[in-house]
């Protein structure tokens, strides 16, 4: 009976958590498109979240592109099809790895930051202070952060796509003696706007998920530094799982289009 009760309790808590995230998503999106717009705050958040994540996104994409090219070259050589390396590396990066890796890495970094910041505000009663001064915490704190991610994450994804392809091209030059011009020509001939669009559209969905999950956990943090720490860990795990789950369904949906 105890086990059943605990399972019920756990399931109920998860359902409530999911319900809370869905409701926060709705309110955050509604406030993102209705005035007043906190343009200054959005710009500040883009600077603090996006600009400071550029080196992280670029470094990860550079080496991921290079590793992908190494593995692809190794596989293609078996079939004598090395010349297809540009298309394979380019398409995999732009459609899949660029947006997903950027969301995982930047999401972990930025999401943890949002939860820690809002969580600290929550446990020190600053969120209650905002409410008691007649301000709306979702409009003041959540929507600008989601906007910043919706603008910043696709830009970081484009940066990751570019540096990833560059990493792949370097490997193709050194391992397969391919000319850079030849590599880029083959890639651009095969790459379509739809590929780029599907990758960037994914990153917009990831951005909303990252922003809302991180804010939700922050706003619900209780119990001092310990509570903020737990909320931050929950955010990193939840963002990783959510990004991968959303990615599966979006990939399926985009392939059907």
């Amino acid at each position, binding site marked *: 009976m105890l086990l059943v009760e605990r399972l019920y309790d756990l399931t109920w808590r998860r359902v409530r958590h999911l319900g809370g995230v869905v409701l926060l998503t709705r309110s955050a999106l509604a406030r993102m498109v209705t005035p007043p717009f906190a343009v200054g705050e959005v710009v500040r958040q883009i600077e603090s979240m996006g600009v400071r994540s550029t080196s992280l996104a670029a470094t990860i994409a550079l080496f991921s592109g290079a590793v992908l090219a190494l593995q692809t070259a190794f596989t293609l050589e078996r079939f004598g099809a090395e010349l297809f390396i540009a298309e394979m590396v380019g398409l995999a990066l732009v459609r899949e790895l660029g947006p997903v890796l950027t969301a995982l890495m930047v999401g972990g970094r930025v999401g943890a930051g949002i939860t820690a910041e809002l969580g600290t*505000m929550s446990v*020190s009663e600053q969120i*209650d202070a905002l*409410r*008691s*001064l007649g*301000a709306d915490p979702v409009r003041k704190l959540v929507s600008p952060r989601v906007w910043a991610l919706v603008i910043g994450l696709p830009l970081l994804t484009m940066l990751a796509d570019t540096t990833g392809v560059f990493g792949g091209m370097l490997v193709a030059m050194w391992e397969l003696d391919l000319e850079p011009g030849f590599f880029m020509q083959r890639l651009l001939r095969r790459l379509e706007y739809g590929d780029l669009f599907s990758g960037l559209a994914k990153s917009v969905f990831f951005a909303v998920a990252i922003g809302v999950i991180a804010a939700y956990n922050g706003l619900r943090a209780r119990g001092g530094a310990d509570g903020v720490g737990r909320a931050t860990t929950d955010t990193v795990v939840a963002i990783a799982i959510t990004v991968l789950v959303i990615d599966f369904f979006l990939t399926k949906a985009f392939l059907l289009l």
Partner: protein
Amino acid sequence: MSERVPTVVSVQGVYKSFDGKPVLRGVDLAVRRGETMVVLGGSGSGKSVLLKHLNGLLRPDRGEVRVLGCDVARLDEAALVSVRRRVSYIFQNSALFDSLSVGENVAFALREHERLDEAAIAARVGALLESVGLAGTERLFPAELSGGMRKRVALARGLALDPEVVLYDEPTAGLDPLTGAAITALIKGIADGRGATSLVVTHDLAVARELDGRVALLRDGVFAFLGTLAEAAEQDGPVGEFVRAGGVHARN
């Protein structure tokens, strides 16, 4: 105080529990316009929980909360804004916004609710800070302030919209006796000078003695006593013991 003075804060039969543990078990309270009431009680007696019901930060499991004629317990967040503009809440730990300067903290409600130009806001902020003895501190950040200074900034922030009701949550907690006395004097000045209705939650009997209004003693989730501090000291049982333990003695 005359019976004809309207009641601005009315709490009737309020119950509140957290995770199945009852904190308030049917609280009744009425505060009249311009009155200063002190809510006393030991740690964990539910004083702050009661106060948070008065501006909608918490909602009762059942019971009625009316403030300035509004049914606070049944208003949604958007509708509560009009109540919160008229009811100020001073938090126990000041709850200043860390990322904003002192001036920006005090200007927050003005920027949020009033259409003033920056010069008017700066003048208003300067006057508010001067009234709490912190003139010229606009550019400092909360992390640079002492506990007493933070409390003063919180008072200035709370007074920005000229509230009709001010709710104080443990205003002297964590302060040395001298600073505590200075904060209590400010609270008295706000009540007398601005005519604001004040509800002060505290376990500090020195505050109750200085403010000299009615006191209500919260015990086991209900008010065990309502009257003056001297009357409380004359009570037998836990109410009298609590008050006498704080150095307040019966007149006889």
